[in-house]
């Protein structure tokens, strides 16, 4: 029952026992933070504070402090919102879709990928809230009976669909993550020596004891949550794309948007997982668990989704021409050759050309190359959203309204602040949570561990 074909590479390297896995995964939580962690945390925290200042300035003074104008009335805020939501998608894809497909390699990365999902959806959620202006009225997006007779929210609006999609996504991802974390918190609780630490992990672990019936329910709940999260993750970016697709702006009014956005989301999310995990495995010495096999798999996903995105870009151009609508044709001609040509071609280079280099096995198993590409991809995906949003609206039907967008320091500050906030959360997580789903990982040790596989190879199957 523990046999796996020798053709498959081992997922856990070295001569590991169950106890080694426990020790390796508890170590970052139990030991002192490395100096590199403090440096990274300080930088992230300063960025976060800077962003917080810019948010307070925006709320105190008004949206006028942003670079928006009458023509370009949606710019960095929605670009950042879509970018962060997209990044979040890879976490759910890894933990839910790869669970349904029984991909064992997900087990080394799903915990951190889900953490990334939750933290990036938090960043995404900030932007619509800030853009409301009067953030203390944010509860008006909920269908709550009120004294206006009752004036309800508009269920025909894609912006309201977004409210439901993002809040469902955030909360369901959080419980999915937490259900998986409970047995691992119990592991830390049971070996904690410091009484304060023991007490904290006692609270977090909910009293988990690993009874047979509980494990049976655990597996069932994980499977059903994966089954629910899979269509959920596809729906979230679909609904985000509806914000644009249901409008009548040339360049936005496109039926191709939902699959195109979902592919782009997975593409950018996997790139962010790569960026984060290449650092985590190095700092916390997890190379045996997150090894070249995992990185190559993720690079293949990046290559595949990057190609889908490329096909979508070209389809968009073709359909604009084929539609025969001159406004539609102009919108796309203007994207590629107008004043924002540099944004369009940055997007094309980063998203369409760069992932094609992953066809080379040598390159996709190279760590430095992977790290560079993972950042390039996320720069490209930010430009994609910027191109879709700003270039479509900066040329109005009335040439007298034509304008450009230039961000103010507040636009830039809030964006940098969310990057800081994201890393603050991720770095705190990496120091206090088990960064690998160790209980799940132990179930594949005998089939995918290097020492056990070697043993099977020497002695045949049994």
């Amino acid at each position: 029952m523990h046999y796996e074909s020798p053709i498959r590479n081992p997922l856990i390297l070295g001569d590991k026992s169950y106890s080694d896995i426990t020790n390796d995964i508890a170590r970052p939580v139990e030991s002192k933070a490395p100096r590199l962690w403090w440096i990274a945390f300080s930088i992230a925290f300063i960025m976060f504070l800077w962003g917080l200042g810019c948010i307070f300035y925006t709320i105190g003074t008004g949206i006028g402090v942003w670079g928006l104008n009458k023509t370009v009335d949606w710019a960095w805020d929605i670009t950042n919102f879509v970018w962060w939501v997209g990044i979040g998608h890879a976490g759910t894809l890894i933990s839910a879709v790869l669970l349904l497909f029984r991909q064992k390699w997900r087990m080394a990365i799903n915990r951190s990928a889900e953490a990334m999902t939750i933290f990036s959806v938090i960043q995404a959620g900030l932007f619509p809230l800030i853009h409301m202006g009067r953030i203390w009225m944010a509860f008006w997006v909920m269908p709550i009976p009120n004294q206006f007779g009752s004036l309800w929210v508009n269920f025909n609006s894609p912006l309201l669909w977004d409210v439901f999609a993002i809040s469902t996504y955030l909360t369901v991802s959080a419980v999915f993550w937490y259900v998986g974390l409970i047995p691992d918190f119990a592991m830390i609780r049971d070996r904690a020596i410091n009484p304060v630490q023991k007490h904290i992990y006692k609270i977090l672990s909910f009293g988990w004891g690993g009874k047979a019936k509980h494990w049976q329910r655990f597996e069932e709940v994980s499977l059903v949550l994966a089954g629910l999260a899979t269509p959920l993750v596809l729906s979230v970016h679909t609904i985000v794309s509806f914000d644009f697709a249901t409008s009548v702006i040339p360049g936005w009014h496109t039926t191709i948007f939902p699959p195109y956005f979902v592919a782009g989301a997975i593409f950018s999310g996997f790139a962010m997982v790569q960026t984060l995990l290449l650092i985590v495995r190095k700092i916390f010495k997890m190379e045996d668990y997150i090894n070249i096999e995992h990185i190559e798999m993720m690079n293949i996903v990046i290559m595949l989704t990057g190609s889908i995105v490329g096909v979508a870009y070209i389809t968009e151009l073709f359909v604009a021409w084929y539609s025969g609508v001159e406004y539609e044709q102009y919108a796309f001609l203007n994207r590629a050759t107008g004043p924002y040509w540099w944004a369009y071609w940055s997007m094309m280079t980063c998203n369409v050309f760069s992932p094609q280099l992953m066809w080379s096995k040598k390159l996709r198993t190279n760590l430095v190359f992977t790290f560079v590409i993972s950042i390039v991809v996320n720069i490209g995906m930010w430009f994609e959203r910027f191109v879709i949003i700003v270039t479509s609206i900066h040329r109005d039907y009335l040439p007298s309204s034509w304008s450009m967008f230039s961000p103010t320091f507040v636009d830039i500050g809030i964006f940098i602040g969310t990057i800081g906030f994201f890393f603050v959360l991720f770095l705190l997580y990496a120091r206090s949570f088990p960064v690998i789903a160790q209980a799940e990982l132990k179930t594949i040790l005998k089939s995918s561990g290097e020492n056990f596989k070697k043993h099977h190879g020497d002695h045949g199957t049994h």
Partner: protein
Amino acid sequence: MGHTKHNPIIRAIFNDDDIVLDAVKDLRANGYNVSEVYSPFPIHGLDEALGLKRTRLSTAAFFYGLAGLFFASWLTYYTMIMDWPQNIGGKPNAMWFLNMPSFVPVMFELTVFFAAHLMCWSYFAVNGLYPGAKAQNPDPRTTDDHFLMEVELEGEETDLTAKLQELGALEISKIEA
């Protein structure tokens, strides 16, 4: 899987999942009642070996999802059609059914929301899991690399301990009921 009140419990500690699984099968075949196994990770096939019934949580999740779907249908009907109908973008609002296509996203999201959250609450409730609960495992090593089996003692104690030792138990202790 509650223990019978009157029988003492024999606890045996193992250090390998395959040995535990074989031991459970062997003991049950010999008429012993294995009342509980604590393990650091899910052991494939252990629930069947112990004779546990399938969990009904997934069935519950289906009905929770259905409840979410009905709630979303009622909510959109009440707010958009009954309480304050408005002509929004020329969408027909005389009947809920005609306006329904634009409610599909919200209906879907609420279905998932109800199914996922209520299922997780049920999961915590039936497992007795809550913040700050006392650890359920009698030995802290069972979240690391050890496996603890509880067997009800009905016959001679020496027979059972000998059997457990033969099956690979590392430590054996007796708990009075």
